């Protein structure tokens, strides 16, 4: 034989062996364990996708070990090469085992129960009795007791009659439904990963609006692999108010945001629909879901400049203590009407510090004793100088740039505790007033067009599993041999086609009936 003919053949043999190996039950089993093993680090190590600061902190504090794990994608387990590889192999293995099984099943549905073996006593379950019934009666009795079984009668020589029966064909159907549904679920998940998006935004609950018109409207936005943010489902949400109720110990009882929303034609004729947005009860519109994720306080400050001009702002402050809703933040003001940027950067003002919904002041230190808005107060530093807003560098809306303070370009000009209505007058006559407080809500907008398919697959999985695990595949045979003087020897045999566990009692019950043909169940 020449080289040229054997090489493709060898390759074919290799491919066939690989395919067989990959689709064998043993490989599936090993892949299942690998999947389980590979998923574990994601539960034990902080993951970037869930908690970025903690993941970074972990990497930092573990030196080379942290960096090593990071290189191996242990902080992005579910997007890692190795996790995806196992997942993909399992998928291929699943397809490879399902196709032949489906073909086989299609053949098996039409097949007749197999012939009665010659020697029934060699079967795992068997029994024998002599009866005064005729072979015909034995067969008739078997028919009666084998309702719901697929039954085949045969005659052998010397007047011997046999019955082969089988049942539980649906088991394999259930099993196939389960595996195919799992396949569907995996595909739906993968498509979802392409097309989904998730964005978060904070909206002050004073009638402010948010529109899903582009990614820039969001504070953070996570697009799927195939989403560029250009055609988000159009809708707007207006947050009119927010209520929270608490237990005396500060534990939250219920959150409700009163919102209006518009979508579709409502957008054109500016029509709003009301909705009570609550935890566990998202607003579902035009294929998107809007969730109420969190809430907090947004104090309102007014700065009256020496020339009499006033600026008022309500900016969200972030929660520092989830139990008492003590909050911190920085509300930043540009002096109005100053066109010279050099001059402006000497007179920008920031009001920073703490806000407490229920103030507790000890030694002039402000804390909060309860999350409910009963006795609000702020403890603020008023900073004046260059806020660095014009520098082009992005900065947190909750903080001032500390480096500008350190370099002396931003200086503290007052420190005071204020109740609503309270004011501070600075040395140049500028007046800072704490007017009051609004609440803010943090909303999440989620979009995943395959979600329903995932659900349908999952439900089919449970149904298929239920069928597959409750229905049992059983075979039973009866042979009636005439023994002379009107008597008949009845032999029965049984075989469990799946899970050997526990055909024993069931077979014994059935055998007792079959061996005694005159008995009614």
């Amino acid at each position, binding site marked *: 034989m020449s080289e040229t003919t054997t090489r493709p053949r060898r390759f074919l043999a290799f491919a066939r062996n690989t395919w067989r190996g990959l689709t064998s*039950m*043993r490989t*599936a*089993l090993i892949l*299942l*364990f690998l999947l*389980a093993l590979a*998923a*574990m680090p*994601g*539960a*034990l190590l902080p*993951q970037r*996708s*869930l908690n970025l600061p903690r993941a970074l902190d972990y990497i930092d504090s573990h030196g080379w070990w942290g960096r090593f794990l990071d290189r191996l994608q242990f902080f992005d*387990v*579910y997007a890692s090469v190795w996790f995806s590889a196992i997942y993909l192999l399992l998928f291929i293995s699943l397809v490879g085992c399902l196709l032949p099984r489906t073909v086989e099943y299609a053949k098996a549905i039409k097949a007749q129960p197999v012939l009665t073996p010659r020697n029934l*006593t060699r079967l*795992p*379950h*068997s*029994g*024998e009795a*002599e009866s005064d019934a005729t072979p015909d009666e034995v067969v008739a009795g078997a028919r009666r007791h084998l309702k719901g079984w697929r039954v085949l009668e045969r005659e052998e020589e010397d007047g011997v009659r046999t019955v082969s029966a089988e049942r539980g064909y649906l088991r394999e159907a259930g099993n196939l439904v389960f595996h195919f549904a799992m396949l569907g679920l995996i595909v739906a998940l993968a498509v979802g990963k392409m097309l989904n998006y*998730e964005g978060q935004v904070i909206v002050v609950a004073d009638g402010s609006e948010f529109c899903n018109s582009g990614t820039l409207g969001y504070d953070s936005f996570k697009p799927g692999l195939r989403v560029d943010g250009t055609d988000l489902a159009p809708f707007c949400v207006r947050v009119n108010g927010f209520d929270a109720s608490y*237990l005396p110990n500060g*534990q*939250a*009882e*219920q*959150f409700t945001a009163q919102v209006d929303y518009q979508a579709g034609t409502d957008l054109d004729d500016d029509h709003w629909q009301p909705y009570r947005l*609550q*935890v*566990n*009860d*998202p607003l579902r519109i035009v294929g998107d*879901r809007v*969730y109420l*994720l969190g809430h907090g306080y947004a104090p309102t400050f007014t700065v009256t400049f020496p020339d009499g001009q006033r600026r008022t702002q309500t900016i969200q402050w972030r929660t520092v203590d989830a139990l008492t809703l003590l909050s911190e933040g920085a509300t930043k003001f540009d002096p109005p009407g100053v066109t010279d940027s050099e001059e402006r950067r000497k007179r920008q003002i920031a009001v920073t510090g703490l806000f407490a919904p229920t103030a507790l002041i000890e030694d002039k230190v402000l804390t909060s004793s309860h999350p409910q808005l009963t006795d609000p107060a702020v403890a603020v530093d008023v900073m004046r100088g260059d806020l660095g807003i014009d520098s082009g560098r992005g900065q947190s809306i909750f903080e001032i740039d500390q480096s500008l303070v350190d370099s002396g370009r931003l200086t503290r000009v007052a420190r005071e505790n204020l109740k609503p209505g309270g004011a501070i007058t600075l040395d140049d006559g500028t007046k800072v007033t704490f007017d009051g407080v609004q609440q803010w809500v943090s909303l999440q907008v*989620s979009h995943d067009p395959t*979600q329903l398919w*995932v*659900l349908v697959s*999952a*439900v089919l*999985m*449970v149904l298929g*599993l*239920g069928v597959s*695990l409750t229905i049992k595949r059983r075979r039973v045979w009866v042979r009636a041999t005439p023994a002379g003087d009107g008597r008949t020897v009845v032999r029965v045999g049984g075989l469990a086609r*799946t*899970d050997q*566990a*526990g055909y*024993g*009692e069931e077979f*014994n019950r059935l*055998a*007792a009936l079959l*061996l005694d043909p005159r008995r009614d169940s």
Partner: protein
Amino acid sequence: MPVNETLANYGDWLYGAAALVYVFAMVLYTTEQAFTRKAKRSEQAEAKVLVGAGAPAEVADTPKIGRLEEQPGRGRADRAGRMAVALTVLGALLHLTSIVLRGVATGRAPWGNMYEYGAATMFVAVVTWLVLVRKFDVRRLGAFVLTPVVILMFLGGTALYTAAAPVQPALQSYWLVIHVAAAILSSGLFLVPGVVSVLYLVRVKHDANPAKFARLGPRLPVADALDRLAYRTTIFAFPIYTFGIICGAIWAEAAWGRFWGWDPKETVAFVAWVVYAGYLHSRATAGWRGTRAAVINSVAFGMVVFNLFFINLVIAGLHSYAK
């Protein structure tokens, strides 16, 4: 809704009483175990029928597995065993009452924190055991099942104890009732096969080498019976567990904005599910039945317990409020 402190206190008190009664039952099960010399005759008779041809009479009157038959010479053991079951039933009734009182006192489903979750799960485990004792001849193994039950109840009543209170907004959903109920039901059911699979391994070790587990080995039911019990209970619990995970995903979609996010709790639930799927597969794979399957089943239950304790208590995730 305000909490009825008095009822809640009675509930806690009954919880302790139930655990105490279980301890007494354990002592009696152990007594029965100690008086049992070797696998009972009825089991050996059954094993024979399974492998060989039987005379018709024998087929017809094969002892029904699990029917408690008086056997001469086992009087003392049998009496201890019956009393143990009676005490277990009493404990279960106290246990149930305690759970109901918690529910009435708080006016919600009584599984909103780890104490309540553990209490309900252990109740399911005990009831599962009582049902199995009626069907299989495994009564004298009661102490092995009640040991983890009592330990977990002790942990639940001390380290994890939570005073009766309403639950926070994220938990106020009928999905709490369904999802957590499915989790409780399946975890409680899984406890029994988890224990039985370990006993199976002991028995198999002993059968291979009688010097190993020389005291315990011969007193356990035959390996086949243990394997069957573990398998049957697991296939009953597994679809419920699957259903529970799916309900969790549906609830997460409504509460957290995504149906699956690889939160640690979700991850370990998934891992345990995959290992259980591995168990079912192993029983259909040549060379993986028997010992390997039993190891896998024990590991799977280990994951369930790990998910309950380690993930809730040590790892911070969205589920942490379940504390």
